[in-house]
């Protein structure tokens, strides 16, 4: 028997170890949640993981969760799209043409600081409670993230790069396409990280306040009848959805990073 023969090792890769750690944390929290309420009076107020899971499966089976998710997701995705396009475009314009930037920047900084949800009643007054109005509200919220990302991205393009383009005789469109947009990519990625969860929060807030559908509506109708299981089920589903969408889109964006 040679000493070189390796003893059976239970070597675990660092990423697997991290995954196991995270899973154990989740399991511990769920276990406490599952078993602790039995000894207290709040049992019916916070529900239990098994009840929540049961409810989620029930809702998936009868199609309710899918229907409401589509309503919320369409507000989020279209809102992100329109807010993202408008914000990036105006941010680029304001960052590229300095005088424009100097004029609009303080006003937009002020508007950014406004709590947008305080305007939901006004939004309803102006645009009604249609899905279109949800998209508009989400777009308004995410607009600012994209605006400031592109604005700062464009303003931080180094002088040496700008000179390079100028001495090649580049016009404004060439400079924007070749230099400003790719140079702002990192800023846009950072904006996306912030904008996706905020888009969900915006969509849910407006659905809670005024809507006939969407996950926010589901949260509200459940909590209105003191249905803790339903409320937690809707919120848990929402978190899963928002995290998945966020992670996927960031991954997609990052994979495109240096390809051009």
């Amino acid at each position, binding site marked *: 028997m040679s000493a070189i023969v390796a003893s059976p090792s239970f070597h675990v890769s660092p990423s697997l170890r991290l995954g196991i750690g995270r899973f154990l944390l989740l399991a511990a929290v769920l276990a406490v949640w599952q078993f602790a309420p039995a000894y207290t009076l709040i049992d019916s107020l916070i529900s239990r993981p098994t009840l929540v899971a049961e409810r989620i499966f029930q809702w998936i089976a009868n199609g309710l969760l899918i229907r409401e998710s589509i309503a919320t997701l369409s507000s989020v995705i279209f809102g992100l799209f329109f807010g993202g396009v408008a914000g990036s475009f105006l941010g680029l314009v304001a960052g590229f043409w300095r005088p424009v930037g100097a004029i609009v920047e303080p006003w937009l900084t002020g508007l950014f600081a406004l709590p947008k949800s305080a305007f939901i009643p006004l939004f309803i007054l102006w645009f009604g409670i249609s899905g279109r109005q949800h998209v508009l509200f989400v777009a308004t919220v995410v607009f600012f993230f994209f605006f400031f990302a592109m604005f700062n991205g464009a303003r931080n393009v180094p002088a040496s*790069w700008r000179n390079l383009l100028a001495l*090649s*005789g580049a016009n404004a469109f060439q400079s924007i396409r070749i230099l400003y947009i790719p140079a702002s990519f990192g800023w846009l990625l950072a904006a996306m990280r912030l904008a996706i969860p905020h888009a969900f929060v915006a969509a849910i807030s407006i659905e809670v306040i005024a809507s006939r559908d969407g996950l926010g509506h589901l949260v509200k109708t459940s909590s209105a009848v003191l249905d803790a299981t339903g409320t937690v089920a809707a919120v848990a589903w929402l978190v899963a959805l928002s995290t998945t969408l966020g992670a996927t889109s960031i991954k997609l964006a990052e994979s495109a990073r*240096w390809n051009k």
Partner: protein
Amino acid sequence: MNIQASHSTGVFDVEPGRAPVLSFQGVSKSFSHENRSTPAIETINLDIARGEFVAFLGPSGCGKTTLLNLAAGLIKPDNGAVLRDGEPLRGPNTRVGYLTQSDALLPWRTVIANVTLPLEIRRIPRVERQARAMAMLERVGLGAFARHLPGQLSGGMRKRAALARTLVYDPKTLLLDEPFSALDAQARLAMQRQLRELVDELGLTVLLVTHDLNEAIALADRIVVFSKRPARVLEDIDIRHDPSILRQRRTSLDGSLHDRLWSLLENELEAGALR
């Protein structure tokens, strides 16, 4: 000391009737910062003839870079005029190649995509710009690295990629602002030799800003010495280029030139310190 700016027609100006490639005519420029205006250069008169290799030598921060930026058309003079081929310069000078201390390679583009960039902007067809960029990369010895990203290259290689990009659109004039100062001694020497070869081969006119005496002597045909800020021309010396000057640096001729230039700079540094 020769305070008066001297007009040099340049030793390589073979056609006397022809306008200089670049001409600074009574050019002044100040920069304002926090409501205070600081003059960077004062009444500069200089002619750069076709085919000349001119070094601008002066203490750090004396305004040499301002002169190059004026020649590149990136800034406008307060007084006087910058002429290109006898015509006043309006807007960025697209006939020059400008290479600075920063290589300004775009990190998201491969080396070849960086080199094709000036051609892309000039709307040269794709096939042609690829071919020209590749030829230029081969010339600076980076052919094998065309598909690399700038972040994967060493400082010297990045500098050569930047040089290839500067030369790819055949500018007849090069503006170099301490281009090799960030390199180590060996890489710098190799780059200097390569630059001089390319310049001779392509018949370029060069304005090289440097505070390195040896670099000026090794490369230039003519050395213009500037005072401390605001920059004025102190001396304008023609030194004929000798292809073997890198080896000749130790000769007595160079030694005396070196001493003369050094004493000029030294005076300026002392004057600055006493201020």
